[in-house]
């Protein structure tokens, strides 16, 4: 083989690999490296502190609160989004103009930018004049503070996330439901299977790859949440909506504690890595492939 022919594949992948190495792989290592130092970004000196940043992090009440927020936010968002999407998928899995319109309606938030949605919901959730308070007033509830109160702020953000995410997940579920061969249902009908049994023993297992896929995507996205927090609550009130990425942003860009922020970043990395590994483990065990 000519020399050029041997080198050619490498030349073809080189640009992409270069981009990935420079902007994805290297930054990870750089971040891990920085987490072992104390640095305020301006001074040319970086002080080596070993694992001190990590120790400080786990002793910092604020960080522990942040971790707790992240997990609660993720847990709520994922369960609500996936649960509601599954329900909607079963309900809306029909053809017809009306169902087409409804599917389009629930999908529309997906392609709108997160900024727009955050701004819109900030207005909707305005404690004084927002539409949301008017709506719940119709059902007999009093006005809520939504984003302005530490007890309701995080859940408000969850509502926004679910509103944005439900459409996409529902449509993916519908696609998954439609890919289940019809004759399996016919066989079940002949076996006199009741609706709940059919769902539990047939639909659910056949949908399980899709479910796991969406759960993982949702989880990863939830841990990475930033825009909504930045625009709607800036982490408050009283740190009730401060989550990992926002925390990193604060300490890196506002407080200039680069090492500390990097350490928090490493923690995020570990969480994401564990989630990904869990996903692939679970995938091979519990998922049923028809």
């Amino acid at each position, binding site marked *: 083989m000519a020399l050029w022919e041997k080198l050619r*594949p490498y030349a073809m992948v080189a640009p992409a690999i270069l981009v990935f190495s420079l902007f994805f792989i290297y930054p990870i290592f750089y971040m891990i490296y920085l987490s072992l130092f104390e640095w305020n970004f301006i001074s040319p000196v970086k002080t080596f502190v070993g694992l001190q940043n990590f120790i400080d992090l786990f002793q910092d009440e604020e960080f522990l609160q942040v971790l707790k927020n992240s997990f609660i936010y993720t847990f709520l968002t994922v369960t609500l989004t996936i649960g509601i999407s599954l329900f909607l998928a079963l309900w809306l899995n029909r053809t017809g103009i009306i169902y087409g319109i409804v599917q389009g309606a629930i999908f529309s938030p997906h392609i709108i930018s997160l900024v727009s949605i955050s701004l819109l919901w900030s207005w909707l959730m305005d404690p004084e004049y927002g539409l949301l308070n008017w709506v719940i007033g119709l059902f007999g509830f009093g006005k809520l503070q939504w984003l302005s109160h530490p007890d309701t702020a995080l859940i408000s953000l969850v509502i926004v996330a679910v509103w944005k995410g439900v459409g996409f997940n529902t449509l993916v579920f519908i696609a998954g439901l439609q890919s289940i061969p019809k004759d399996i249902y016919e066989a079940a009908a002949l076996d006199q299977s009741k609706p709940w049994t059919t769902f539990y023993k047939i639909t659910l297992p056949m949908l399980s790859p899709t479910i796991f896929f969406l759960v993982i995507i949702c989880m990863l996205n939830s841990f990475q949440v930033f825009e909504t927090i930045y625009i709607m609550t800036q982490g408050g009130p009283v740190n009730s909506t401060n989550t990992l990425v926002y925390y990193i*942003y604060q300490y890196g860009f506002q407080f200039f504690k680069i090492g500390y922020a990097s350490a928090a970043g490493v923690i995020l990395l570990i969480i994401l890595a564990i989630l990904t590994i869990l996903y692939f483990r679970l995938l091979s065990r519990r998922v049923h492939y028809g």
Partner: protein
Amino acid sequence: MPLKSADQLAPERGSDWLPPVATLNSVKVARFVIRVINGIGLTLLVLIFALPFAWMISTSFKTLPETMVFPPKWLPENLVWENFVRAWNTGPFLHYFMNSVIVAVGILCLQMLTVIPAAYAFARYQFRGSGFLFGMTMITLMIPAQLIFLPVYLQMSAWKLLDTYFALILPFASSAFGIFLLRQSFKQVPEELIEAARLDNAKEWQIILKIMVPMAKPVLVTFAMFSFIAHWNDYFWPLVMTTNDTVRTLPLGIAQIRHVEGIVTWNVLMAGNMILVMPILIVFFLAQRQIIRAFVYNGVK
């Protein structure tokens, strides 16, 4: 024996026997009720998603005092078109718009340049280390911008590349997702086709550009849509990488409206939001089917 009429049969069957007509009615009623409930449910569902947008439109035409009313009024007295003008003038919006275009298009072009050859190489060549390199590519799928923004920011700062198009475009100059999709597509091209092309004296680049790429067009179009929309809507990365208006993009411009006038002027803000949202919403309603198909069916790998 003469046939009996329904009435004649009735006494034989017992007094609680209903003639068939009534039984049919109760089933019909039940079905009707279910349909009504279903209809109500669907309407509520659509409202949950349509009302916020309707509210946004309504607000954008109000005067400020009109927004500070509870319970809220839906229809403003007059259509205050001025809100849009004010929103547009809060910042150099045309400049932001151009920046968004430059960034989104720039990213897309670079992605095409890096993704197509890489996908082809991974799909059709065997070379040492291909497994490792491909694995590395796939790992970047798990590395979101939110994880690496700090170190990349520090890098860019050190190279004095903040507030340049480079900072906004280069990190996204390639796409692992694109490579993954396109590789699948290329792998599905039968070997025979490429052999025929070789016998037809085609050089490698001709095979790629004239045969493989046209065959992968649907995938490429889908990917282009994904990429363009994602980077057009991106708020986070430009936020981190810019400190002034030089390369600032549209999402940042819109969000800034809040801070311009001191207090939050919801009407102007919503007008600005309309500018950002309406184009996409219109395109969506026109091409709904294709867009949904593209996004959803590529989610179902």
